[in-house]
């Protein structure tokens, strides 16, 4: 009596388990059919426009949900290399060394443009100051120490600059903003290139560090005779005054959406096929020299066909309709030439 009873019990349990499992998997399939979740992580600078894009795209295509975590460019690069996210995002292009670590080739897709602007606080000076590349490099290297330095006076003949020490303010946290700023300094100053170099954090020769754009802006606002740099978006949204910078054509240009896009079209002619290009100190008389792309990092081989389609469709949409949303959030849009190149490059995602 005992043995058959045991068998019966075991059968009972087995069939119950089968039913449970199949129900669970059915449920899972049903969920998966409802929404496809694509995950991304990386740069903080474009986060406002990315979250708007992903939100709008979800409204248009309810079956696709793109989750993006703005954990910083470094984290974005790390996670896309490890394959823990479907795509990454970065403010500074990946280095050759990083690309070699990748199991599948990683492609860069520029999305929008940003810029850094010099902001300052000099009691008694209300005019917009002009900065030459030599002046900015000299100040951040600690060689130009006073506002009354001839290099600054020459560019601002009508401004009464005080004989006071310049207090330099830079970002203390690693950031794409810093990357763009020092990338520019390295291009215009050989000394900066050899002594300091380019990265998201550097060994600053002089200055105080503020955390985030708000930290730098706060220190500049509070410290008389200070000079710092913030993102254009941040300066515009907070109605901060900022200076003009002389570009490679010799014109002093104020950063705005048009002059930043102009820098990108100036660079479009020499755009490398992988889009990893620095557009600081770009050619063109209207170009603002401290501008940069920000990129999405997409693996060239995506095994899940549904995800591959979702990512490609999104990129296609971002290059077309998506671009019309960027200026409302103070980002500069991609120039037409770059959009055309990217549309071609989309074929590389397989």
């Amino acid at each position: 009596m005992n043995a058959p009873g045991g068998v019966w019990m075991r059968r009972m349990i087995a069939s119950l388990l089968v039913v449970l499992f199949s129900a669970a998997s059915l449920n899972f399939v049903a969920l998966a059919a409802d929404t496809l979740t694509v995950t991304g992580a990386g740069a903080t600078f474009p986060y406002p426009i990315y979250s708007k894009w992903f939100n709008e795209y979800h409204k248009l295509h309810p079956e696709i949900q793109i989750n993006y975590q703005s954990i910083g460019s470094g984290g974005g690069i790390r996670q896309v290399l490890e394959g823990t996210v479907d795509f990454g995002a970065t403010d500074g292009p990946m280095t050759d060394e990083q690309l070699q670590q990748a199991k599948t080739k990683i492609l860069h897709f520029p999305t929008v443009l940003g810029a850094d602007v010099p902001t300052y606080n000099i009691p008694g000076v209300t005019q917009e100051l002009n900065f030459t590349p030599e002046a900015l490099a000299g100040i951040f290297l600690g060689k130009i120490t006073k506002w009354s330095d001839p290099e600054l006076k020459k560019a601002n003949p009508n401004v009464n600059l005080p004989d006071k020490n310049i207090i330099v303010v830079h970002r203390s946290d690693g950031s794409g903003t810093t990357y763009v700023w020092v990338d520019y300094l390295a291009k215009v100053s050989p000394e900066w290139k050899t002594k300091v170099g380019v990265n998201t954090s550097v060994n600053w020769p002089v200055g105080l560090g503020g955390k985030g754009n708000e930290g730098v802006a706060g220190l500049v606002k509070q410290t008389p005779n200070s000079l710092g740099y913030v993102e254009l978006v941040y300066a515009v949204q907070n109605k901060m005054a900022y200076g003009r910078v002389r570009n490679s054509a010799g014109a002093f240009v104020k950063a705005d959406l048009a002059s930043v896009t102009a820098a990108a079209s100036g660079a479009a002619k020499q755009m490398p096929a992988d889009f990893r290009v620095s557009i600081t100190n770009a050619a063109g008389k209207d170009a603002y020299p401290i501008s940069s792309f920000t990129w999405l990092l997409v693996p060239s081989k995506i095994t899940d066909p549904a995800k591959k389609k979702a990512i490609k469709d999104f990129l296609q949409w971002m290059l077309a309709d998506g671009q019309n949303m960027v200026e409302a959030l103070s980002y500069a849009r991609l120039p037409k030439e770059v959009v055309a190149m990217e549309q071609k490059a989309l074929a590389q995602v397989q």
Partner: protein
Amino acid sequence: MQKFARRLKQGDEVAYLITFIFAASIIVITALLVYELYTGSALTRERFGLRFLTSSTWDPVALDFGALPFVYGTVVTSILALLIGVPLGVGAAIFLSELAPPRISDGLAFLIELLAAVPSVIYGLLAIFTLVPLMREYIMPFLESTLGFIPLFQGPAYGVGMLTAGVILAIMILPFLISISREVLLAVPREQREAALALGATRWEMAWHVAVPYARAGIFGSIFLALARALGETMAVTMVIGNDPKINASLFAPSYSIAAVIANEFSEATGNLYISALIELGLVLFGITIIVNAIARLLILATTGGRTH
């Protein structure tokens, strides 16, 4: 075995087991933490060795890393915080427990505990908007004109720097100092106080010569907790310390702390060596905490001769 069964029935053994697991989990967590920090920093430990502790270069571009300026900034700001905070905190606790009327004491104690719950970013903002201008316009120039012959109080007054970070840390550790010290002072037995008063002591003499020595161990405990908070505080410090990894004799000069640089640079750090250097900084901070605590405990042992009361 029977004994065990009986104890099990009474629930003793169960309680023993459960509480043992809770206590052991703390050791396990600490061990895991150290293990993670140790293995995560293998790259820099191999590459730089002890030079990591003695070098004062922090160059993420050239990948040359040294911890000394961060160690210096962390230790100096914490010492400043204790120098300012301990007399204030213990003094306030003595007033609240011994001299103030109970109703005022309870009311103030409640407010102080509220202060402990304020997020550190709020202290940081307060410091930026009120303390920093105050330091730059008044306190630093005053210190320079009166004590300027000492190198500690020389140099340009930016407003941000080690002194400002020390002051904001002192304010942040005050709630811990006051509320714990007050509790232990209140726990001093009534007989002790009555005996002192019966011998003709004034209330202050009773507080200072009887209550405070009796509560000494607990007061030291509050100082440890305060010190631990000061060493590890991140957000408020990074907002006012100036974030410049250089060693400077002047307290007015900007500096940097270990916790601040990890918070600032970790999210954007690329490259294994860079990340390893930041993790090793965490290991160094852990080491500092242990060393500082050990020194403090030795000091207590020396002053009390091993007695706890």
